[in-house]
């Protein structure tokens, strides 16, 4: 059972890396930086529901560190990790209170991810000038969260199995 879990974590981490890479291939076609679909979050949500919080945390952190080193920079690491951690904690708590479904969990994760990133960007830039991005980032977090949530929910039900009990 243990080795099965380890291999699942490995596969999901690899999948998250591939999804990050696929997403990095899209050019910056939107005028506001930081707007992303967050494809890798499918793997993280899957892990959160199927394996548990610690496993999802591991996958998320490894994914962010590796993809920042490969496709980004050390600086992008700092705000990516802020977004990833806040988003995962919010999704975990929201899942845990058992009131919401996957799509709402994913939306909350998307919005908190974007807010975490802009918060970190404010700290790095030492300026409040970019708080004006917050409304756009909330809306884009909602939009991408719905898409990722629907995909994750489909994937989870197709690969029907027990939920992680945490």
């Amino acid at each position: 059972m243990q080795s099965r879990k380890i291999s699942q974590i490995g596969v999901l981490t690899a999948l998250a890396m591939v999804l990050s890479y696929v997403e990095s291939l899209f050019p910056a076609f939107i005028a506001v930086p930081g707007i992303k679909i967050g494809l890798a979050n499918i793997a993280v949500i899957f892990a959160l529901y199927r394996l548990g919080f610690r496993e999802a945390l591991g996958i998320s952190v490894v994914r962010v560190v590796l993809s920042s080193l490969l496709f980004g920079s050390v600086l992008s690491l700092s705000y990516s990790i802020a977004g990833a951690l806040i988003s995962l904690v919010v999704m975990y708590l929201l899942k845990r209170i058992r009131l919401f479904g996957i799509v709402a969990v994913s939306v909350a994760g998307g919005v908190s991810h974007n807010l975490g990133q802009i918060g970190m960007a404010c700290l790095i830039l030492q300026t409040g000038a970019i708080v004006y991005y917050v409304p756009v980032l909330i809306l884009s977090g909602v939009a991408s969260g719905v898409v990722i949530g629907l995909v994750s929910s489909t994937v989870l039900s197709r690969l029907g199995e027990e939920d992680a009990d945490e």
Partner: protein
Amino acid sequence: MKSDKKTRLRDIILIASLAVLGLVLLVVMRPSSESGSTAVVQVDGVVIARYPLSEDGIHVLNGGLNTIEIKDGKVRMMEAHCPNHECVHQGWISRGHQSIVCLPNKLVVTIEGDNSVVDFTL
């Protein structure tokens, strides 16, 4: 997957309220309709330069890392030495509350109006 009706309803309420929050903030924090008069350049939170938007010109900043162009009362990032050039893709800005951010170089260009720096009210 448990997806009973109550869960679905709560999902929709949560998602809708976040969307409404976003839209309300979008209206409250929208760029002011009047054009700004000055482009303010900050690096690491420190103002390093101010340029009146009335004077066209090209300014090399930040030790050559960033170049801004001012033309017809608007400003844009013309060139930048950074990985993604997201600041360059943002194009022209001219109104209060708008900004161009070059995160890798820690540079922010904002527009100031005639009245004040912070002039939005909640």
